[in-house]
């Protein structure tokens, strides 16, 4: 074991510059670079830094243990690299290739420097396992970054999809678009109620034109929202009930009685005007 450790250390320390140069070439060949922007100094410094960090880490006594502290800088570097690549739009295999492509120059140097076949096999095996682990680390980090991305986008979509608009003084409208699930209803309810308090609105119109399907759960959510609005002292009109949805609601046996429903937002607005004691009249054109 000691001899292979020596070999690994020696390779990174003694032939670092040569490795770096060979590695860069194979990186560009393998297509792991992807974009021309990355080809110049950035890649050179990344390769150099990685080899430097590797040689530092393998110097340590418990170099075989990837969980030890001596590997922290290497892991940190790789995580950072994967994160930045995930953000720049590289694929996961391109990111993993960054590490895996080091194998080729590394083994060719190793072959040249090590004469004893058994020793060479040992060193190859050990370095290969090491690089595999590091490669997997980059993939994991890459995925984590991507997942964080998706989660953030979902959150943003949630915010975007619940705009509360003021139609008139004392009349709010909430055009709902997309499927209604529990999480969304909660957000919708909170934003709507908050806006009702802020604007002191008497009537809120929930427009479900953009809701593709209404099942019992969605109906339940709607009922809850209406009840909450009434508890606060406002009233609610549901508009945009399409013929198919009306049929579904009746077939499901959902009781929406006591709630004003209208076919279009315009009808709902007319009702809201009526309830707040307003009327729209035409003006005589001269």
């Amino acid at each position, binding site marked *: 074991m000691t001899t292979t450790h020596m070999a690994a250390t020696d390779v990174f320390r003694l032939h670092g510059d040569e490795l770096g140069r060979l590695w860069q070439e194979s990186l560009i060949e393998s297509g792991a670079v992807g974009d021309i922007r990355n080809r110049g100094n950035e890649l050179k410094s990344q390769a150099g830094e990685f080899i430097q960090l590797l040689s530092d880490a393998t110097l340590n006594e418990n170099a075989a243990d990837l969980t030890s502290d001596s590997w922290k800088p290497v892991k940190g570097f790789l995580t950072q690299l994967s994160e930045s690549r995930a953000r720049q739009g590289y694929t996961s295999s391109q990111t993993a290739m960054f590490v895996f492509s080091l194998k080729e120059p590394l083994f060719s140097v190793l072959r040249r420097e090590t004469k004893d076949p058994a020793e060479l096999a040992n060193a190859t095996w050990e370095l290969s396992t090491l690089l595999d682990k590091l490669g997997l680390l980059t993939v994991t980090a890459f995925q984590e970054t991507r997942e964080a991305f998706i989660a953030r986008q979902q959150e943003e979509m949630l915010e975007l999809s619940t705009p509360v608009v003021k139609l008139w003084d004392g009349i709010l409208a909430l055009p709902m678009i997309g499927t209604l699930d529990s999480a969304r209803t*909660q957000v919708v*309810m*909170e934003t709507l*109620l*908050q806006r*009702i*308090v802020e604007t*002191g*609105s*008497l009537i809120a119109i929930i427009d479900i034109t953009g809701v593709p399907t209404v099942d019992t759960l969605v109906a339940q959510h709607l009922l*809850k929202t209406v*009840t*909450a*609005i*009434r*508890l*606060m*002292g*406002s009233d609610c009109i549901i508009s945009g009930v399409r013929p198919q949805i009306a049929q579904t609601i009746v077939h499901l046996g959902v009781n929406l009685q006591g709630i004003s429903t209208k076919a279009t937002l315009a009808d709902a607005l007319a009702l809201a005007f009526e309830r707040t004691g307003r009327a729209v009249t035409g003006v005589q054109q001269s």
Partner: protein
Amino acid sequence: MERIPILRMGRTLLVTIQLDMHDAHAIQLQEDLSSRIVQTGAKGVLIDISALDVVDSFIARAIANISSMAELLDARCVLVGMQPSVAITLVEMGAKMTGVRTALNVERGMDLLRSVSL
């Protein structure tokens, strides 16, 4: 124990709950309010809960009881200023408080009282 103050304004009684309401407060308020309605011959009761951040099922039922009690004594009752979070919690708990008149704020509540008690 502190009592929840009941203010008289013309033929209307004003109840503004400013403290964290406990069960004992709610029971006390029921008793105080019913006797005050009889004493003053009030025609309207306005309960402002805008300062309440937490309303549990007991308090919700107590308020619903106060409302129907006031109706029995020929006074209209309006509950005003419920916080959005409180409304959501009550709905989730299934406390619908049917039969309780509600309004967004004190001003709207007074308008409503005037329109129903005249």
